[in-house]
């Protein structure tokens, strides 16, 4: 039902350039998309909102390319992931840092042992691609096949990223005294 409603709204945007229909889509998906970026940027609210805004503007300008092969939310996550990837690439060009250096730098930030468990602090442990897979799978309840479609790689690769990310996170959580109780 929700998916049908999405398709109807998308059709109104494509055919009639109906901005009200697009406004409804923005209102419906602003929370998951902003939350997705908040997790990817490890809690940078301002950057997350800028990236989320870019995502919706890109979705609006390219909405005719949505072919209904996947659900609208999957397509929107794909746009969001591309926006994030473009941002990462531009940041790497300006800072001239290798991904490994960033990941290594972030993975050493484990000072809050014993403090209140912070999701963003724990996500900093992961590489960007692992963070993307973990966030989509555990936070946004997206299936492995859909994640593969979003990040554009085989399902097996997604499983590997998920497995590595899961091990790192679980170890980190346990080390910090989180046992789920």
């Amino acid at each position, binding site marked *: 039902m929700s998916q049908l409603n999405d398709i109807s709204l998308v059709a109104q945007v494509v055919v009639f350039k109906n901005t009200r229909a697009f406004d409804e889509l923005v*209102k419906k998906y*602003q929370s998951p998309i902003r939350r997705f970026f*908040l997790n990817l940027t490890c809690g940078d609210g301002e950057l997350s909102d800028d990236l989320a*805004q870019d995502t919706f503007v890109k979705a*609006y300008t390219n909405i005719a390319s949505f072919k209904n092969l996947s659900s609208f939310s999957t397509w929107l996550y794909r746009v969001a992931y591309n926006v994030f990837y473009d941002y990462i690439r531009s940041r790497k060009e300006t800072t001239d840092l290798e991904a490994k250096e960033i990941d290594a730098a972030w993975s050493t930030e484990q000072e809050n042992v014993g403090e209140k*468990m912070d999701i963003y602090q724990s996500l900093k442990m992961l590489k960007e691609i692992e963070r993307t897979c973990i966030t989509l799978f*555990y936070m946004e309840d997206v299936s492995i096949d859909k994640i593969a479609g979003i990040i554009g790689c085989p399902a097996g690769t997604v499983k590997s990223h998920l497995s590595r990310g899961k091990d790192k996170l679980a170890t980190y*959580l*346990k080390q910090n005294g989180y046992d789920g109780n």
Partner: protein
Amino acid sequence: METNDKLLKQFFNEQKQEIEDNGFSRRVMRSLPSYSKHLSNLWVSFCTTIALVLFITLNGLQAIAGALREIFISIMQNGIENIDLKSLLIAVVVLVVLCLRKVCSMA
């Protein structure tokens, strides 16, 4: 492995929260390309309407006709021989160039 999975599911469920809109959708809608174009079209229409209303209420047509008549009369009174043909030619060329540029920009 299963325990890790359970642990992470529970951790993310506890951390999951809905984010309030707080004007975000409005900000997005304002930044849409067609929205700004729409606003610019509205502004142009508004200005054109105001200009037309002022033109009609202030007898614009009559003012233009009066100005042209005065120019014609002054030319006739001073004599055609006093007209500087060089200046007239430059003015005509400038006007033609401006018109062409306007037409090109509208195309």
